[in-house]
């Protein structure tokens, strides 16, 4: 019997499409961008997008307050968002999954210790601490990535812990232990592959969160340093001109919103596909 695609499948498809397009744009940014995103032209400041009155086909999305081509900056900005989202998630994934698997597998005192670390991390105000660290150490790509990576691992730890507890007592783990496999072998070869699917879902949602947080840090002036075209920084720089040129914050804002929505749609779709429970 042929089943028509349901709303869920359409939503997942839309999400996957958005993520695929933005990823391609990010990878091929230098080829796609019509102009250099850093070149200023003070004679061509705040040109409106091409579809508005006074727009020019030379600048599809107009120019910013320094006369830089807005479309080119937006395209290069996709690179920053995707790169930071993925790298932060790799770091936080390594930390969170390690803690979660150890807590779930060994239980007892180990579990208590990990739960304590999770509780402590949750009580610390995330943005405030990230801002302080970046301000003290100096803002750069690496600092933003490391700071967010060191702060965002909680969801990974919680999910890895719960799922490890579920598989810990299954027969094939007991079989591996009985056949004399080392603890490291059991953890890496038997436990980890079997808890991977829910962790993939967590990873997609964490990428979205990291992208939003990078934009927020950059917006507050303590994220990716200028002149890099981070979408958050573009919104911050355009803020002073938004009353007369509202599009200047609409363009990067909508891009950010659509990308994060796409990643979340994909993550939700994967969760339904894998049949894993929702984690809050």
């Amino acid at each position: 019997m042929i089943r028509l695609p349901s709303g869920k499948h359409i939503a997942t498809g839309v999400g996957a499409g958005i993520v695929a397009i933005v990823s391609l744009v990010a990878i091929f940014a230098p080829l796609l961008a019509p102009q250099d995103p850093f070149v200023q032209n003070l004679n061509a400041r705040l040109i409106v997008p091409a579809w508005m009155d006074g727009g020019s086909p030379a600048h599809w999305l107009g120019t910013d307050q320094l006369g830089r081509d807005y479309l080119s900056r937006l395209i290069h900005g996709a690179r920053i968002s995707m790169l930071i989202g993925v790298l932060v998630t790799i770091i936080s994934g390594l930390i969170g999954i390690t803690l979660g698997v150890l807590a779930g597998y060994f239980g007892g005192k180990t579990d208590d210790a990990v739960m304590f670390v999770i509780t402590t991390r949750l009580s610390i105000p995330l943005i405030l601490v990230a801002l302080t660290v970046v301000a003290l150490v100096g803002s750069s790509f690496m600092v933003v990535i490391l700071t967010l990576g060191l702060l965002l691992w909680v969801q990974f730890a919680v999910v890895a812990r719960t799922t490890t507890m579920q598989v810990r007592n299954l027969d094939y783990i007991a079989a591996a232990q009985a056949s004399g496999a080392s603890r490291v072998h059991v953890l890496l070869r038997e436990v980890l592959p079997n808890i991977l699917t829910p962790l993939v879902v967590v990873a997609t949602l964490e990428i979205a969160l990291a992208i939003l947080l990078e934009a927020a840090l950059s917006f507050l002036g303590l994220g990716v340093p200028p002149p890099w075209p981070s979408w958050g920084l573009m919104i911050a720089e355009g803020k002073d001109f938004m009353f007369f040129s509202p599009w200047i914050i609409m363009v990067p804002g909508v891009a950010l919103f659509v990308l994060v929505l796409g990643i979340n749609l994909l993550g939700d779709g994967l969760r339904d596909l894998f049949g894993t429970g929702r984690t809050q």
Partner: protein
Amino acid sequence: MLLFLARRAILAVLVCLTVLVVSFALTRLSGDIAVSIAGPNATSADVDVIRRNYGFDRPLPVQFLDWATRAARGDFGESYIYHVKVADLINKRLPITLTLGLTGLTIALIVSLPLGILAAMREASLVDRLIGLVALLGQAMPGFWLGLVLIIVFGLQLQWLPISGLDSWDGYILPGIVLAFSAIPSLTRLTRAGMIDALASDYIRTARAKGLSRASIVLKHALRNAAMPVVSIASVQLGFMLGGSIITETIFALHGVGYLAWESILKNDFPVVQAVVLILASIFILLTLLADLANAALDPRLRAQ
């Protein structure tokens, strides 16, 4: 019950102590704190004077114990910039942040409770899907950008609401909406999930069989049971909102502790930064503890653990 309370309380105290260490260590990340305070044009003699005056020449553990014992008594030292007591600065500004957080939570509950209930009553219908979509859209919305858009639309074009400052109570509305957005998706989903479970339970079937009205069943019987997880998540969300108010307060120029923290971070005013981190974390710990206690009081099964 007593054992449960005691264990929760001890955990909260331990977390508080760890946060104390973290907020102290945080401001020592820059390496030499005296150089940061002295600024870029200072001579090495200036830096030495600052180091001695502020006691940075002492060993780190001594500095920490000194700071921590004072902080425990509510004495966070003096601001390097304003030259007034940090505790006074924060006392003056905390009510603004708390009011903002409560406004945000109230708006979030006003929106998400009806949406969650409606979605549960019409499970798997078009309405349910639309509400799910709204939650997804809310989740993807960058708060700082939403704030700017609200300023353009409601402040500038419609001129309904003030766009910055706090000359009257309505200055809280737009920033409250921005904060509420961060909590609406999870609160709506949780209300929906709780209501679906509750509506499928035996006591609801009994209530239906007794011929009670639909409104009475949903609002009196099902909601009471669905509300428990919502209450605990709501208090956690309030904690997150207080921490996240730094962005909202910056955009709307509300002079609460978030704005104070942002200014202090930019100006290397470490005693203020330390104190704000510590106080916001303590409020969060207190809120989660209260949520645990409320849950234990409502749910006998938890007490037995």
